[in-house]
């Protein structure tokens, strides 16, 4: 027989699925307490939607499908764009809308066989670019990470405009910008220096670019350093933006969970303002990413400023496993009912009543398998009812449950 197991298989056993469901429920509950409502979008999006917006998902990473009319569709490779499309294209787009989602996104990465799907849980808040709105969503991310019992986590906060403003003055080609961006993202000062040496740039600008990756840490340290490389009013304003957000975070009393990282660059080009990502201890990639995108709505005909973030559920599971955080125990059945042929009706009636009460019940004909399940056992036969362990050892509420169902008969094995 041919084994059909793909390397990127996302099959989940009952136990793994339960763990994932519990984690997802935690996130959903938390999002709801901040006034977010769940939505869903189609698994298919038009390829043109993604190819028309510059700087989103790499075209080669998208999984394409062709429909009966010959149009090219993609399995949604991200969630932000579909939601922005959905909200913006409605007749009356409502500002102030808070939406969340838990859905799979699909991307194939070069070198990895098969397609890759991952579950994302995220929020989008269609609200103005104010320090309060920006900080609230960061607070929600912090609150969620606390719910997940991570002992040590940090939210890195940066600004999409900071790198863009600097690079605008450098007049580099697109390929050169990408190279420089990768070096800044890996804080590789050595290579940045070598790279910049090959260009005719103002010395001051070179110093500023070299400094960017090191603007990481507490605002008290980062802000004065950043001020040294501020070259125009626009950059000054961005910095003020970040300061304001931090002040609100202080009011939320979560400033310890946040650090500035002005070398933060998101590969999604649509971000326009504050961007952030969340790290948990010893997990090398961010478990959460997000930021403000105020111009994306214009692509769909109605300018709607918005901010959002997404958690990668699979990464969260992995990180929790790595840190040996407790996972819910699989639910064992509450009762096992064994019955002889003549007592079948009674057994089914009993099982129905117990299940109505929300208890988990398994039923077996006497003598069949199922004998190994650890649970309170009830045996129905001509001799009456036998319980094991003995009825006396049952918890009071279980005794009561049984007594209510069998007012007169009672028997011990």
């Amino acid at each position, binding site marked *: 027989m041919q084994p059909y197991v793909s390397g990127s298989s996302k099959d989940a056993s009952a136990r793994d699925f339960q763990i994932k469901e519990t984690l997802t429920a935690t996130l959903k509950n938390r999002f709801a307490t901040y006034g977010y409502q769940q939505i869903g979008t189609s698994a298919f999006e038009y390829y043109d939607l993604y190819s028309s917006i510059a700087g989103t998902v790499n075209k080669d990473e998208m999984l394409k499908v062709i429909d009966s009319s010959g149009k090219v569709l993609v399995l949604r490779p991200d969630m932000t764009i579909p939601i922005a499309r959905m909200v913006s294209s409605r007749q009356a787009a409502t500002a102030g809308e808070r939406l969340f989602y838990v859905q799979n996104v699909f991307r194939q990465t070069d070198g990895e066989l098969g397609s890759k799907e991952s579950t994302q849980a995220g929020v989008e808040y269609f609200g103005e670019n104010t320090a309060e709105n920006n900080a609230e969503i960061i607070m929600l991310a912090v609150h969620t990470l606390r719910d997940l019992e991570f002992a*040590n986590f*940090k939210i890195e906060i940066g600004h999409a405009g900071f790198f863009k403003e600097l690079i605008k003055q450098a007049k580099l080609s697109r390929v050169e910008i990408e190279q420089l961006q990768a070096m800044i993202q890996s*804080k*590789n000062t050595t290579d940045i220096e070598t790279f910049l040496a090959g260009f005719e740039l103002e010395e001051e600008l070179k110093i500023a670019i070299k400094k960017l990756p090191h603007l990481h*840490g507490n605002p008290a340290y980062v802000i004065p350093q950043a001020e040294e490389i501020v070259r125009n009013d626009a950059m000054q304003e961005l910095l003020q933006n970040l300061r304001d957000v931090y002040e609100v975070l202080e009011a939320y009393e979560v400033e310890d969970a946040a650090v500035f990282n002005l070398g933060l660059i998101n590969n999604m080009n649509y971000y326009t303002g504050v961007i952030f990502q969340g*790290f948990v201890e*010893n997990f*090398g*990639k961010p478990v959460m990413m997000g930021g403000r995108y105020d111009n994306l709505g214009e692509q769909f005909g109605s300018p709607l400023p918005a901010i959002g973030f997404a958690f990668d559920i699979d990464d969260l599971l992995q990180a929790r496993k790595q840190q040996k955080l407790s996972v819910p125990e699989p639910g064992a059945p509450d009762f096992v009912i064994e019955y002889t042929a003549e007592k079948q009706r009674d057994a089914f009636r009993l099982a129905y009543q117990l299940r109505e009460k929300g208890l988990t019940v398994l039923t077996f004909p006497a003598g069949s398998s199922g004998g190994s399940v650890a649970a309170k056992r009830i045996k129905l036969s001509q001799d009456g009812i036998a319980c094991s362990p003995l009825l006396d050892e049952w918890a009071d509420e279980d005794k009561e449950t049984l007594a209510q169902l069998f007012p007169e008969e009672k028997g011990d094995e």
Partner: protein
Amino acid sequence: MEPLTLALAKGRTTSASLSVFEKAGIDFPDFHADSRKLIFFDTSGKIKLIFVKAVDVPTYVEKGAADIGIVGKDNILEAQADIYEMLDLKLGKCKVAVAGSAETDRLSNQSLTVASKYPAIAKNHFQKKGQSVETIKLNGSVELAPLIGLADVIVDIVETGTTLKENGLSIIEEIEEISTRLIVNKASFATKSEVIHPLIQQLQGALEEAKA
């Protein structure tokens, strides 16, 4: 507090790397390169050193099994790991280059077969030039490949060029300068900043002192 984990690459730059730490005031008294032990602590007990194969160092750091690592740029490039690459220890300097025999039709348009310990570096290099290549992964004696017709050219580390010359090969083009780097796990950099940031500064200080 949990000690910081440092993954150190086994190889010719091991002792020179440790002397940089020594200059920065961090000593691993029990460490011997030929010891069978794989884990060592510094005198303060704040840094745990794990001694691993060089190619594995980027993986250890990316996956968070180590917070920081000391490893050659060649292995970083090959692993394509998502990490911070923060300091150049300026040790073990050499380069990665494409080399071939005199008869090799100097990288003409024909499709090339490239043998290398670094298939990813080789592939990326030729892809950037718009040339399609087939790569063959070898784990040693790469110079042999063009001689016995296994490959047209090789991509390998070149230090002095002696090995190449003795096998009748020469450098066709240079790809990248290599030296030993300090790499850092992205999460550790944010969550353990109060230990990692000073350590990096200490090491940087030691490096600048050595230069002066």
